[in-house]
């Protein structure tokens, strides 16, 4: 299987209508290297959580799909509320597995206090706790134009009914 890290599942990358943030991880060459000289990137998926755990089932399927792409040696899920592991617990699991860099992505459709403030606060606390680990945050899921393509398909499915 070819490395799907850059060309995700072989799909072309259309130009994004969204403003891009400067200094994305890909354009930088400052990965933290552990004492053994090995850098290990962890993907931390940050999820809101639900009093009905079944509500997370589809998210876990998506995370399994991410794992199947083998883009990150470590993939962990952390919840803000209601469910376990919590985000700090999930970060601890990443570090225990030897992560030198934790890349956190909010599994949220909208931005708001959680995405814009609460989640950064949790990551900043982790930065203090693990000074040897680099932390980055990606855009929340809803910023991806792929969501529009999914909405198109959901609409198309009922268009002909």
């Amino acid at each position, binding site marked *: 299987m070819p490395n799907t890290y850059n060309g995700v599942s072989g799909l072309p990358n259309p130009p994004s209508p969204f403003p891009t943030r400067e200094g994305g991880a890909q354009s930088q060459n400052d990965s933290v290297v552990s004492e053994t000289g090995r850098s290990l990137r962890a993907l931390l998926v940050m999820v809101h959580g639900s009093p009905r755990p079944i509500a997370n089932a589809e998210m876990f399927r998506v995370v399994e799909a991410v794992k199947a792409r083998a883009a990150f040696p470590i993939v962990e899920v952390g919840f803000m509320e209601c469910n376990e592991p919590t985000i700090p617990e999930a970060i601890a699991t990443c570090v225990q597995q030897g992560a030198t860099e934790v890349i956190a992505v909010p599994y949220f459709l909208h931005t708001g206090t959680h995405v*814009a403030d609460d989640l950064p606060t949790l990551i900043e606390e982790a930065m203090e706790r693990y000074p040897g680990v680099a932390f980055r945050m990606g855009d929340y899921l809803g910023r991806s134009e792929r*969501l529009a393509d999914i909405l198109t398909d959901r609409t198309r499915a009922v268009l002909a009914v």
Partner: protein
Amino acid sequence: MRSHADRLRTQGLTPLVAVGYLNYSEPPFIDTVAECVAAGATRIFVTPYFLIPGYFVKVDLPKAVAAAQARFPDVEFVVAEAIGFDERLADALIESANGAVGPSGWREDLRRASQFCRPNPQCPLFGTAQCPKQPVPAEKG
């Protein structure tokens, strides 16, 4: 959300694409429906921008659609499925991770997020210093 609507417009699925909200964001769902009807819509496809078919999709949305149907009895409403599982969500997660940034970029949304909202008592920020519409100074001491 508005960017998604712009992209949907380019895909030509329907002649009209509009965004309406079930919560305290602008414009409310019913206003958007009214706008579509005023523009001549006879069939309205309601596509939930929700990750799962939870309470909002199963309870709140049908109520909102029923209210719209009562107000516009000649319009046909067709409700699509919630987002649920999709391989492209995995693509989106990986792409987001590839563009991840350090701490200086983490709070950009804080000033951007609220530009479309209206003051509403149900909003968690209502009546606090963080409310961008009617900020109340934080109590001292």
